[in-house]
């Protein structure tokens, strides 16, 4: 996709409800940030899915390298005590 005729790719984050965090919804093409916002509005929120949109040009995202997955993530797999599963949460606490 390095063809210069293509618009750059943007990652779209949508907050679906006040109080919730922005979540990654997908990606789309747009010539600039304003157009990315308008396109995101039409592509991802036309069925009333959102109250706020963030757009980030994909090239600005630094991603971890899948080749390093072993050293990055495997050491965490056998440390169940790092999960807060030994507490009782009151029902009133949602979205934990």
């Amino acid at each position: 996709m390095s063809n210069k005729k293509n618009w750059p790719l943007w990652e779209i984050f949508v907050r679906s409800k006040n109080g919730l965090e922005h979540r990654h919804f997908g990606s789309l093409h747009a010539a600039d940030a304003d157009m990315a916002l308008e396109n995101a509005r039409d592509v991802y929120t036309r069925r009333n899915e959102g109250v706020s949109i963030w757009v980030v040009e994909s090239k600005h995202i630094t991603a971890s390298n899948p080749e390093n997955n072993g050293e990055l993530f495997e050491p965490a797999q056998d440390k169940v005590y790092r999960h807060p599963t030994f507490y009782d949460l009151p029902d009133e606490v949602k979205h934990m």
Partner: protein
Amino acid sequence: MKNENLYNYILGIADNSLILGQRMGELCGHGPTLETDIACTNISLDLFGQVRSYYQYAAKIAGDDRTEDDIAMLRKEREYKNVLLVEQPNTDFAYTIGRQFLFDVYHLAFLAELQKSNDLTLSAIANKCIKEVSYHERFSSDWVKRLGDGTEESNQKMQAAINDLWTYTDELFHQTEADKAMVAEGVGVDVTQLKEKYYKQVNELLKEANLEIPESKWFQKGGKEGIHTEHLGYLLSDLQYMQRTYPNMEW
């Protein structure tokens, strides 16, 4: 019919949105990019949603066994009252955007006035539509600026579209008999009062978009009286195909 002027007045408003909605809907699956395709189809669906409210009201005014679908789908070409502008074809994306822009600026100003109508149904419909139409106007204005102020080629195409569509703008401000009667009753919008502000806003945006304001003073008219360009017949044959082929079919 007891209130024929009101009936005709509602159709005059609704037909603009129906025919423009059909034109935008033609781009479903054919837009220049996936994202603009969805944007144009969204506009189309907004407009179709709006016309349902108008035609339901018109059916109630008619007071016979006509339904909203009969009114929308089963009239003959000469019975449609839309302006010539909205029936113009999607020659290229610049025409699609130019047509939308030239109509949206009018549509938004019109609805702002219709909100003040002393007919409560019409003012409620206007109130509901105006947010959607504000977005349409923002979308089409942005694109006129992008294309006009883009590359040499996009500027030429946008200019060609504006030049060709300009001749259909004056008709937006013509009054029919139904218009005059409804203005007198405080129901309708006096469109002649919208003209000056319309051209001021359009001209300013064209300037900002690096486009020339067309100088031609010769304007086409007739749509509001049912005298249409050749394009409407083809559009209607698409629009009405299902109802004509399978009468009374339901989705």
